[in-house]
């Protein structure tokens, strides 16, 4: 690695508050090797293939993400939803803002509470799925998270839990960057609905590793309503065992620089995943990046990706999606679509939909379409008395709602739909 990269990597570490809790030996060991791994690769730079389409600058430098403004409480689509909330305030678990975490069917531990050397279930998962994801694409900032994240939550699901768990990350001030690491294990045949909710400003790097055992079902929803000066890098790493299922959707209605990296290993036969995302960020130099990889390792698995982006003036939307099918993974069904609407002459959409296929009995496809709002449709709405602004917003909602259709929890779907309607002043 060149010296420049090494120096920048060390700078990044020193800018993070990384006071370590070394009381858990196995955790300390993973962190130590991960620090080495991170420094071996170094921070991503603009000429790295994975970052060719999005500038890594903001994700690399905490200092670039600064604002004097304090965060005000934002509206939430989930206010009326019955849920168990786990709140992190400026990167630290806030017991006062959170709900009572004792519920039937789950065991919740805070990462910084894992103090003993004795066995904890998360020991077998922590850092492993992240490491696996590196086979497909390099993600040094996820290694950074493994090495330095001090807070987060470990959730073990041992029964069907009907109430959604909300992980809410609130940054209220221009902080020194927050790293959060969550690990979730869904035991055989059980189900969890997990909401990740982002609010506020600041620099954050938040990673969730999810292990779904046989016939487990995971519903995941990510909602970003961040301020313009935020820089938010999220990672979702999932390993699916036999006949398990993941349905993950996301909506971003606000962010400055946002990159969502998702990696799914279909590691058991007949497992399946559907990953989708919709975004509509503000005008100006915002970045909205979805980088997804789906790794088919076993036969008879299904994967589906649906991404929709609406770009306003000067904003950049990025979609990188890769499907890799290994030799063993015969009878794979892989689908991917990415679509963008550019509202303004200066918006940009950059896409790299990729297929890497080593098995022959597969059916894989991807498609990508981008362009302006269809003029013919716009005229049709106007010729029914609807003015141009309203007509455009109706069409934006219609465009994004294809992603909402992917959400299988109907409560969440309705809340998201009506929140977006309000957001679009419909």
């Amino acid at each position: 690695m060149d010296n420049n990269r090494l120096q920048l990597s060390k700078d990044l570490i020193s800018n993070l508050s990384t006071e370590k809790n070394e009381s858990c030996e196995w955790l300390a060991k993973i962190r130590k090797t991960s620090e080495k791994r991170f420094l071996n690769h170094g921070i991503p730079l603009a000429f790295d293939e994975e970052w060719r389409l999005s500038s890594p600058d903001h994700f690399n430098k905490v200092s670039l993400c600064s604002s004097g403004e304090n965060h005000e409480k934002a509206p939430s689509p989930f206010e009326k939803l019955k849920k168990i909330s786990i709140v992190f305030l400026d990167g630290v678990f806030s017991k006062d803002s959170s709900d009572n975490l004792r519920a039937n069917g789950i065991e919740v531990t805070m990462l910084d509470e894992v103090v003993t050397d004795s066995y904890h279930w998360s020991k077998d998962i922590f850092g492993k799925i992240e490491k696996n994801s590196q086979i497909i694409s390099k993600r040094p900032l996820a290694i950074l998270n493994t090495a330095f994240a001090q807070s987060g939550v470990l959730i073990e699901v041992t029964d069907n839990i009907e109430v959604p768990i909300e992980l809410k990350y609130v940054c209220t001030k221009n902080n020194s960057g927050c790293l959060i690491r969550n690990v979730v294990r869904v035991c055989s045949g059980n189900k969890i609905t997990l909401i990740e909710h982002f609010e506020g400003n600041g620099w954050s790097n938040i990673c969730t590793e999810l292990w779904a055992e046989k016939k487990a079902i995971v519903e995941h929803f990510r909602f970003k309503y961040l301020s313009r000066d935020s820089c938010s890098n999220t990672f979702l790493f999932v390993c699916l065992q036999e006949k398990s299922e993941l349905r993950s959707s996301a909506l971003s209605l606000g962010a400055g620089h946002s990159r969502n990296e998702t990696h799914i290993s279909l590691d058991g036969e007949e497992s399946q995943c559907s990953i989708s995302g919709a975004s509509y960020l503000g005008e100006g130099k915002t970045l909205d990046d979805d980088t997804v990889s789906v790794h088919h390792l076993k036969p008879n698995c299904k994967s589906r990706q649906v991404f929709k982006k609406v770009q306003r003036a000067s904003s950049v939307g990025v979609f990188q999606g890769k499907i890799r099918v290994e030799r063993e993974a015969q009878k794979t069904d892989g689908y991917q679509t990415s679509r963008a609407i550019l509202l303004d002459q200066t918006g940009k959409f950059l896409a790299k939909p990729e297929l890497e296929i080593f098995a022959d009995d597969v059916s894989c496809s991807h498609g990508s379409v981008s362009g302006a709002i269809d003029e013919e449709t716009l005229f049709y709405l106007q010729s029914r008395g609807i003015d141009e602004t309203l007509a455009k917003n109706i069409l934006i909602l219609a465009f994004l709602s294809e992603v909402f259709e992917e959400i299988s929890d109907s409560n969440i779907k309705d809340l998201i739909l009506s929140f977006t309607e309000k957001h679009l002043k419909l």
Partner: protein
Amino acid sequence: MLKINDLKVKIDDGAEILKGLSLEISKGEIHAIMGPNGSGKSTTSNVLAGKPGYEVTNGSIQFLGEDFNQLTPDERVVQGLFLAFQYPVEIQGVTNTNFLRTSINSVLKARGEGKMSPGEFLTKLKTKANELGISSDMLKRSVNFGFSGGEKKRNEILQMAMLEPKLAILDETDSGLDIDALKVVSSGVNSLRSTERSFLVITHYQRLLNYILPDFVHIMVQGKIVKSGAADLALYVEKNGYSEFLS
């Protein structure tokens, strides 16, 4: 009500489509424009509705005394115009009901009138939909999405019935319809006939005019009206073709 005077229109790539069109429609009248393909019939309806991509180089369009050319498409609807499309657009993700409600409330708001209450809206919608044989399932589906040709045209007439325009333009409404669908659509139109409402029916064939009886028929060739007459002119054209008007 509508007064078109010596209208000349170019499309974006420079070709002149309308070459001096003049037409006057009074309250309660039904006018039909007939003509061969490429004569400028659809351009006429598009220009009246304010579709982008056309440039008016000469002449004027007056609707109820107001200069129409400066108005956006939605503003024209507020004034009382309605265009039933030849090819209604499919809008995935917007339900028919929502679309109609938004449409009506937009128009009412622009006219400075209050919103229609949800109850009143639904009652009216159900009645009109029933008349046109439109099922409640179709109302729940996305606008025109996956509709058959006949369903799309019936949906256009439903929109017209809900918006109650002063002047309705029917652009090739008969195209792609079988005889049963044609009857449903025509009776939908006829039920909206009144002394206060005018129609401009644009068609290639005379067939539709058996069901929607016009007061006046105009033959359009190469961007202007070359002959006008009563309803029997349509029958004459049906029998003899357009050839004698071409030259």
